[in-house]
């Protein structure tokens, strides 16, 4: 158990180190640097040189990488080109806002998906399953910006239940943000739940056909007990790692959904940073998203390990 744990944590660490390397050197390989991109073609040589000196871009790449990575580890994310402020300061509040949105999505979306997935899986191809699966396939196929726009059209324009676009600033109190998160979260839940429930459905169907469920049925175990004690634990365990993997989508989807709703989070900041040609800020956000993904997956992995003893032995 301990070796498996250490192995997972070690792998996550290595992955994070590689992410840092990739994010730094991917831009090294590109023509231009933070200064030439930000200042544009009209920049004079002396302006460029001054900017490069200020950011230390005149130093060799390996040296800059060491300094950049070292700063990052100590929480110094560098200076935002456009805003001329420390990135940590620019990112901080918006990271909180994105976490509120993602947290709300996960808190409602995951239980909802598990429930619907089990319902669909217990009676495959029944009317309930057909409805749930049909909507899920639609949600999985149609792009996020269309689902989000449809949400605004339906709940804001037609029904008038909620404001379509978030108008509060990024420093608003958490409770206000939670209220503003309703429609963006609904959009994310719609798509996230679709992905998870399809997996749970398949998992439930598989377990229902397994030998031990057949056996329990032949022994005369009551249906309720079979579902609660035999099917659910075995069907839901694999879902944990799937939930970890869907985080990759959630984090990417957040970028688009935040832009659709004008939500003041990290994703929209990334879009703004690209428009402002603010390379250091884009780098920092890409890095943060990568780290969040690795850590959530590690968390899901460790949770799965604790709950499922069968995973603890090393397999080749």
């Amino acid at each position, binding site marked *: 158990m301990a070796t498996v744990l250490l192995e997972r944590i070690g792998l996550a660490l290595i992955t994070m180190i590689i992410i840092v390397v990739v994010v730094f050197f991917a831009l090294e390989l590109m023509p231009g640097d933070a200064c030439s991109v930000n200042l544009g073609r009209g920049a004079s040589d002396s302006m460029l040189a001054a900017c490069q000196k200020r950011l230390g871009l005149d130093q060799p790449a390996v040296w800059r990488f060491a300094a950049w990575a070292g700063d990052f580890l100590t929480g110094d994310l560098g200076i935002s080109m456009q805003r001329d402020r420390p990135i940590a300061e620019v990112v901080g509040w918006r990271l909180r806002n994105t976490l509120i949105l993602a947290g709300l999505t996960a808190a409602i979306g995951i239980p909802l998906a598990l429930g619907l997935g089990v319902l669909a899986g217990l009676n495959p191809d029944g009317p309930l399953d057909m409805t749930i699966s049909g909507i899920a396939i639609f949600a999985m196929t149609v792009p996020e*910006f269309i689902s989000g726009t449809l949400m605004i059209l339906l709940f804001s324009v037609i029904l008038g239940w909620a404001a379509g676009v978030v108008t509060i600033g990024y420093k608003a109190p958490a409770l206000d943000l939670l209220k503003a998160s309703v429609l963006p979260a609904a959009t994310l839940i719609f798509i996230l739940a679709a992905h998870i429930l399809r997996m749970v459905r398949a998992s439930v169907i598989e377990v229902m056909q397994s030998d031990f469920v057949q056996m329990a049925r032949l022994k005369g175990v009551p249906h309720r007990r079979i579902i609660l004690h035999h099917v659910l634990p075995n069907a839901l365990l694999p879902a944990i790692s799937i939930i970890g993997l869907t985080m990759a989508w959630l984090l990417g989807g957040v970028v688009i959904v935040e832009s659709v709703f004008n939500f003041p989070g990290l994703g929209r900041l990334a879009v703004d940073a690209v428009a402002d040609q603010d390379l250091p800020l884009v780098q920092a956000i890409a890095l943060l998203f990568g780290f969040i*993904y690795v850590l959530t997956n590690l968390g899901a992995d460790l949770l799965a390990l604790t709950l499922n003893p069968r995973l603890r032995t090393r397999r080749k």
Partner: protein
Amino acid sequence: MNTVWLALPLPQILRDVLAQRSGRIGMAIVCLHLAVALAAPVITPQDSAYQDASAMLQSPSFSHWFGTDRLGRDVFSRTLLGGREAMLIATAATFIAMAWGSALGILVALIGGRTDAIVMRFIDAMMSIPWILLVMLFIAALGSSSAALVPVLGFSYGLSVVYLARAAALDFVARDFVLAAQARGHSRWSIAATELFPNVRDSLAVQGAMQWSWILLAVSSLSFLGMGVAPPTPDWGQMIADARGIMQRAPWALISPMLALSSLVIGMNLAVDAWARVTGVERTRRVPGA
């Protein structure tokens, strides 16, 4: 060496897909879209860029079938033209993604050992960054032109192809015919190309078709965010972003590009699902694992 091994049994595939109802519906939608995209410059009733200040936000009528947008442009003409650029970018990017992804994946499966482990760790790390941020990282540096989007998307979407190609090739690397080729002293390149590739070709082709629709969605999403197809070229994602502010007054300007894009992706999914079913390949989803 000839190139026969590259060719897919297209008539057979078509028959298999059309034998299923969902495949027929999907193929019909996709073919309609392709036909419209090809014929659009000839059949569009009006100049898609022409701004008629006297006809802004008009509701659908005989002169403007799908109404006009906030600049008085004909929405029907723009919808017909709106998929062309995205489809072109997606097609070029899919070829790049499939080419480098399958070459690296097959080679790595064949070589195995430490090389395999190191390469896959790098691929893994890059896939930990959500695709859109990886793409935005490159766009921030290169600017957002169609010419830049092709290699950027080709690279980003090739990462998952490496995984798929490697997994498919691993089923064959220990087979006798590969060992025999190794014993004959063939190079790795030639074993990968002549022994492994023909065996994984069909499953990679299905994945390629699927990747195409995901890349198309990526282009549209980027256009929506203002980083993809640039105006004046009409594009569905861009049209949706543009019409969002006026959805109360002119919902037609929003609904036609949404229907166009959604129907194309759904049609593609139906067709590829039917194809995957007959070849016994498990197709990839947009989200890993799901």
